[in-house]
């Protein structure tokens, strides 16, 4: 497992290998066949598989989501790609009222093997409508699966698993993670729902980092280590269904849970994780909790405001440190330049 490649390459390779393996897999979405090829994640697919299996669509998110569902009903395995998760708001009716419910409301007779890929943004002033991490909307709804892989290795395995899954899967990619490199086997493999990953063991505090915040949590781990605090870092990978057991066992050990989300905390993934851990532990373990996420405002574009909008490694480390201390210590680590280049090392 020595080959290292980028998250983009991992997504592209998963798509290509699955399309080669199964002729029912098709990939479409706005601009998937254009020169930029969705950051390169769809590069080369149209040349290899033709315009009927790989095509750019009209600007019709609502109808194209319905089209994808119709294809899935007919036995295809569509992968519908959106360059921004924000644009999924135009697909909500089809995703929430139809894709999620069809198997149930038709008495188990149909299935909707659909993958919806969408990207979250950050930085470069992407602002209010080009950056939102809205996956908690979909976690709320039974019948949908949600995955937000943070490493190239998981990106490939999760996309393969999502394509093979017989149910609708929201596959969430953070654009900063696209630049990450890491070990990715050339062979095809699946990372299925059901297993969160303990990325870093530690005994003092459990930090769950979602999507891009996994990277910031890993950086925070180093800041905390400098203070002698051992953080256990968990990547949930699949948000729905969620492997809560792995997180609960960790908190049983550490007694402290910090969930750092790449979204708002109110009614968000972090609220869900904390609530479920608290319910599981309330009779036997005293535990302390903290959530971090987007500031409860709209994402601004000025760099100084944006900086305050997002949690980062230092604010995460500070929050985790205070959880361990059991008080507001006021500690904030000095920036460490070496951590900026942090990449996923693996093997996992």
């Amino acid at each position: 497992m020595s080959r290292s490649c980028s998250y983009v390459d991992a997504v592209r390779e998963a798509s290509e290998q699955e399309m080669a393996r199964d002729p029912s897999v098709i990939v479409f979405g706005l601009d998937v066949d254009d020169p930029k090829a969705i950051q390169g994640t769809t590069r080369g697919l149209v040349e290899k598989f033709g315009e009927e299996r790989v095509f750019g669509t009209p600007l019709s998110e609502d109808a194209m989501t319905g089209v994808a569902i119709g294809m899935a009903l007919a036995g295809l395995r569509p992968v519908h790609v959106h360059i921004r998760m924000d644009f999924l708001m135009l697909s909500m009716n089809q995703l929430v009222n139809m894709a999620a419910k069809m198997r149930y409301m038709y008495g188990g007779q149909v299935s909707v093997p659909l993958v919806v890929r969408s990207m979250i943004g950050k930085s470069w002033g992407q602002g209010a409508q080009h950056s939102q991490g809205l996956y908690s909307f979909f976690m709320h709804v039974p019948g949908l699966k949600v995955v937000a892989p943070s490493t190239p290795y998981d990106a490939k395995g999760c996309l393969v698993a999502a394509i093979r899954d017989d149910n609708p899967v929201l596959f969430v990619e953070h654009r900063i993670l696209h630049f990450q490199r890491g070990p990715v086997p050339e062979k095809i493999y699946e990372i299925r729902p059901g297993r969160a990953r303990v990325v870093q063991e530690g005994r003092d505090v459990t930090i769950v980092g979602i999507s891009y915040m996994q990277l910031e949590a890993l950086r925070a781990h180093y800041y905390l280590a400098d203070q002698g605090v051992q953080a256990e870092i968990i990547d949930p990978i699949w948000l729905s269904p969620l492997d809560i057991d792995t997180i609960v066992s960790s908190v049983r050990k550490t007694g402290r849970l910090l969930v750092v989300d790449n979204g708002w905390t109110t009614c968000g993934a972090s609220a869900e994780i904390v609530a479920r851990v608290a319910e599981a532990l309330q009779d036997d373990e005293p535990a302390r909790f903290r959530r971090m996420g987007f500031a409860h405002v709209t994402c601004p574009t000025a760099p100084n405001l944006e900086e305050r909008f997002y949690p980062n490694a230092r604010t995460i480390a500070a929050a985790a440190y205070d959880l361990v201390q059991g008080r507001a210590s006021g500690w904030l680590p000095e920036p460490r330049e070496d951590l900026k280049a942090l990449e996923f090392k693996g093997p996992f």
Partner: protein
Amino acid sequence: MTRRYTEEQIRRFYRQLYRIRRVEEEVARIYPSDKIKSPVHLSIGQEAVSVAVCECLNPDDVVFGSYRSHALYLAKGGDLKTMIAELYGKGTGCGKGKAGSMHLIHLPSRVMGASAVVGTTIPQAVGYAYAVKLRQEPVVVVSFFGDGATEEGVFYESLNFAALKKLPIVFICENNQYAIHTHQSARQAKCNIAERAAVFGMPAETIDDDFFAVLERVGETVDALRKGAAGPFFFECMTYRWKEHVGPDEDYHLGYRTPEEAAPWHARDAVRVLGERVPDAERAKIESDIEREIREAFDFAEQSPWPADSELFEDVFKEGGA
């Protein structure tokens, strides 16, 4: 009427029309007893469109409809017993008691699930047609929806994509002129649904309230699609709902329409027109057979058990995968 039909065909058409009419009359009769467990949007008065279109289709052809799909379901060959059981909320229903009247489905006759959210199955039918074309299957897809659905953005998005990709799909707009209690002219800047479809470059026409006209025009179109003509095609079929929007009764007391407005539609009633062309003895036989079938279906629904409690948690996800 240009074509001639055999007596056997006329009998068959009548049988289909009368059967649907009688099933829904029986649904309306039973409804106040509260045995039917979901709201019913009756097609009474509109049966001719579904029957005429489905008479042009093969068993393998696929239809998508709306919450007002009792007629479509039966016309395409959907099972009557499991339909009534579904209306009763029973575990033997076509959706195991999880669907109700608004989400009828019958995969063996390729009635894809109906939806209660206006317009939502239109793009799904288009997607199905894309798959059919990709796999070069000799299948035609038909999408049924009301005049109100043509006001949804997804309608235009769907037509555009179907036309762009030249898909083997026929759009059937059942224009009964009303969305709930509001007339088309109070909702649409121009009452020109077929014209609006035509701007996407697809053949589109309006067909009067005439069973045979629908049969012929849709029949020619489906034949052409089977011979390889490029789709899509669009028909706006004029029709009229006799009962209230939802529920078993008439609704003239609400004042949004009058019996005078309805009278010409009643006078053209396809069930009566076709019935008059069937000899009395044969007609009596058809009707008594249907009465028996309906009795059996309602008995089946009455006697069927509720779904098991454990069903609440079944069918959220399909296990396994490709």
